[in-house]
């Protein structure tokens, strides 16, 4: 156990009150320069890993986004195909040749209500 050398510091400066313990303790574990270097290196590695994890996660989102984009294009194409099919089914020629149209007859006379 070691103790710091006590230097005189006025109570006013310390803001300590009377009868309070004025002894300060210091950890017995001492870190040398190698340990410091290792710790800094570890911190850098951890930060680097966090960065890589985040960057990879962002790229993962890119793939997800690309997949969704492809789905959107595919659905857009399907929609477009259906619209074309719908337009073909309601085209004049199709309507004219339909069974309903074939059953229709020309009106014998047309009457108008006087305005």
């Amino acid at each position: 156990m070691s103790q710091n050398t006590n230097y005189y510091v006025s109570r006013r400066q310390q803001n300590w009150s009377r009868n309070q313990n004025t002894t300060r303790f210091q950890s017995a574990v001492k870190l040398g320069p190698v340990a410091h270097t290792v710790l800094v290196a570890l911190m850098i590695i951890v930060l680097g890993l966090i960065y890589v994890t985040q960057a990879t996660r962002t790229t993962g989102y890119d793939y997800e986004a690309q997949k969704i984009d492809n789905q959107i294009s595919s659905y857009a194409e399907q929609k477009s195909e259906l619209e074309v099919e719908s337009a073909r089914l309601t085209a004049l020629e199709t309507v004219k040749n339909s069974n309903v149209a074939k059953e229709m007859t020309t009106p014998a006379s047309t009457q108008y209500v006087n305005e």
Partner: protein
Amino acid sequence: MKPELRKGSRSRILAGIVLAIATIFVFRLFYLQVIQHDHYVALAQAEQVKRDRLPASRGEIYALNGSTPVKLVMNETVYTVFIDPFVVNQSKEVDELRQVMKDVAGGNLLSTFEDSVNATDSRYQVIAKRVTRTQAEKIKEKHLKGVRFLAVSQRVYPEGQLAAQALGFVNADGVGNYGLEGYMNDELSGVDGKLETVTDVSDVPLTIGSGNIRIPAKDGKNIVTTIDRNIQSKAEQALADGIKRSNATDASVVVMDPNTGKVMAMANLPTYDPSKYYEVKDGAVFNNATISAPYEPGSDVKTYTMATAIDKGVAKATDTYNNTDYIKVDDRTISNATKGHTGVISFQTALTWSLNTGFVTLAQRLGNGTEITKTARDTMYQYFHDRFKLGQKTGIELANEAAGIIISPDDADGNAVRYSNMSFGQGLDATIIQVASGFSAIINGGNYYKPTIIAGSVNDDGVYMPNEAPQPIETGAVQASTSQQIKEMTHVARSGFAGIDKPGYYIGGKTGTSQVIRNGVYADDETIATYLGYGGSDIDHPEYVIMVSIHGDHKVLGGSVDAMPIFSEISNWLLDYLKIQPKG
């Protein structure tokens, strides 16, 4: 013992070498990373950054179905299938590929398929075109090696050939040709977007880097035309019937609203399928004759001469002149095509029987009474060219419109003989759309509307946004009283043909038979038959103007025999379709 590097020791030499190598490395890295920075960044970007065009979707074209827009031209994504013959042959899947393509692609498979497969020295061979998405999906399911797909957008025409020449077509480069596609190409094309992004090996865009650019494409404008698909269909059918009836080769028709200038139908036969424009053998069918083929309009123009004379106060329908079937202008003698109505007759009779002498007389009365003076010629030019807009482009929104020509009286050729011919429709060139638009101004009270084929647009939400109501570009082309008299006169002229119109309506018209100029002279064995008329519930409400022309190679066709039945067929149908109530 404390180790020291002594001068000349091996350790010191080694340290010097290491330092020298490190210095070289530093300089080399400085050169590569600082001095050559831009060069290597460019190389890296070329490898990693994908620059792509985001194609804008071409605007769709609509017709009207009554007042509701219906799609006339649409877009569809189809696929071009291509192979890497080297890979295909390496994979030993040629037989499977052949079978799959025959089963799925069918008619889309190119006849050069076998040659393409055997072209092992090539890495790119197209084997099928215009394959639909469903077909492409089926081929993709087989996971055949060396087979790739390229998506291509193409125009689709749900109504087939309807209004083909008014629409035009889009060529393989995506450029509009002829018709509306040609005229409105820039608006329909839109603006392509841009994508610039870092991609992985599979070309998937990544959000790495700060230089990514994505500018979305701006799609083309969706245009709604004034063409009513039902009227257009009826007009095309009536033309086909007319050609068959008269054994003719070609015919054209324009149906327009005289009170707005809106073209309701515009058709020409023969026509073509715009989705197979590349199969057309004779490029002439791409032309829309109603706007791009000026011709001598013939007797239809007599309504113009009559309107000019009435408007200038030199004649009216009941005024008379002495018809001898011949009239002399300078050194030329002009005769009537129909002879026998000689003696003192009214100008109404001259119009009804289409007697040339009556209209040459009117031209003379615009001068000093006996000659077609410069004053008469100036007046006719002012009315024909400046007021009725013959001999100049109408400005209709269609590509390849022709101006036609009217010789000015200030020109050496603008003499009395020419203007005597012009009084009955020869010696000038005009298009059908010009004649119909000018006639619309005569019968609507004197307001000239620029003919238009655009009714509005459809926005991105699919909502129809109609254009504002058209305004006349010239008012007072003729006086209202002149307009009334011309309507009466043409109604009387048409009334000579009994039983052709539905009873209770007010229909008027004028026949035309023009000689064809062949090798610089009028041919005796070939004519263009025309009919120009209007219809409505009563004299004050003309609802439509129809102009018909029909022609056959080496055939003499007549306005009343060959063109008028086409007019009547469309007119009688139109009265019902437009729900016009009879008042007569």
